[in-house]
């Protein structure tokens, strides 16, 4: 893998979104990944709908939580994703109003990435932003910088938040993951969280996955 990589520098990442008071991070993580995969395939960056998943993915629990693996399956079954504009985010579950005629991006499957952070970095640099999840305890208090909390504050087995890895690198000698979050631009560094990379911190390596277009 290159020493550093950031898909934001390549126009692959849509603006930071805001899930509101709703545990729909899984939907934002997955749509972010598919936005990247679709860009890689077509050269077109689309902002895709999370509300479609909140309303129509019956495998998951809408604002009560969900799993990316279920979301990929639901998107395949539905036939694809609409745009953010066509199926806008409201932050609460509504009846499904999905329309196949408005599908702008589809996927053909999904893959699980290895647990090794070097391999995840290599895959990311080659293939695009990665759906990931982590223990978010320290994130409640995070303002800026590369976060490296003690492991006791960040149990890797208590994963409770899904995010999007968009890049990696080093800042003043500290290796990091650049993580696109879905708590609005007024969180962290313009909506991004930077997490120490290389010690499987907060379980960031455990649930990495991607859709396949």
């Amino acid at each position, binding site marked *: 893998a290159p020493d550093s990589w950031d898909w934001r520098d390549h126009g692959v990442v849509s603006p930071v979104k805001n899930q509101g008071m*709703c*545990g729909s*991070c*899984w939907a934002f993580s997955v749509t972010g990944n598919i936005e990247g995969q679709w860009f890689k395939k077509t050269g077109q960056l689309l902002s895709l709908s999370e509300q479609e998943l909140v309303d129509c993915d019956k495998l998951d629990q809408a604002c009560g939580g*969900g799993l990316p693996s279920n979301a990929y399956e639901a998107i395949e079954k539905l036939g694809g994703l609409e745009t953010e504009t066509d199926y806008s985010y409201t932050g609460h579950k509504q009846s499904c109003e999905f329309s196949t005629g408005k599908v702008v991006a589809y996927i053909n499957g999904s*893959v699980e990435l290895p647990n090794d952070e070097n391999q995840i970095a290599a895959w990311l640099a080659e293939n695009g932003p990665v759906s990931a999840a982590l223990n978010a305890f320290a994130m409640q208090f*995070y303002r800026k910088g590369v976060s490296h909390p003690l492991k006791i504050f960040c149990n890797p087995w208590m994963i*409770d938040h899904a995010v999007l890895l968009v890049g990696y690198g080093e800042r*003043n000698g500290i290796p990091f993951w650049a993580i696109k979050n879905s708590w609005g631009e007024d969180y962290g560094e313009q909506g991004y969280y930077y997490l120490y990379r290389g010690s499987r911190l907060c379980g960031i390596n455990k649930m990495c996955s991607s859709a396949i277009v």
Partner: protein
Amino acid sequence: GPDRPVVGAPGSPVRVSESDPAVLKAVKFAEERYNMGSNAMHVRRVSKILSASEQLVKGVRYSIMVEIGSTQCKKSVALSAVDTCEFFPEPHKQKTEVCLFEVWDIPWESKSTLLKQKCQPAVSKEPKKVAAVPLTHGKPLKESVELLTQFKNFMITYNRTYSSQEEAEKRLHIFQENMKTAQTLQSLEQGSAEYGVTKFSDLTEDEFRMMYLNPMLSQWSLQKNMKLATPTSKV
């Protein structure tokens, strides 16, 4: 208030104008409480505000020195008519007192409490404690001024309003606990992160988890086996 320049360290007492509307409101409130606690036959009113200062303490605490004297109205007069009561003429001037009132105003609740009332005859030198009104909730004002400033800034930055004083106090307490957690995280931080006030600072850990996190992810080991990704190329 946020629209008034503050001189000195955050939270330290700041002298304010005697004609400041907030001070006049606090004086009016103190005057009412004074009369409620007095067994004098006539309504007494503030005739002059000698000095006033304010301090940010879980709201605003006003310390106001006033002159107070007897009016010709008996206490049976309607509260709304008190402002029209005339002071007794010169021979009764000896009844004038100098009082120090401390009024605690909670802006987000539009609620005031008379914390302290020390009065003495205008001619006497030794202050005599007439009455001490207990705090609304009997709690000591022990929160640090720094914390209160942080909380006030947090409320302004993130546009927070609370439904009651109880709710505001509860959120302040949670905020205080969160600041301690943030300090612990900061002191043990191994990277370069800065922890502190965020838009989630008035939420307990449980509330934060319930509102913003995803309990299903903890069952990740139960998720369906996905196909493994093709390894990256060697290039």
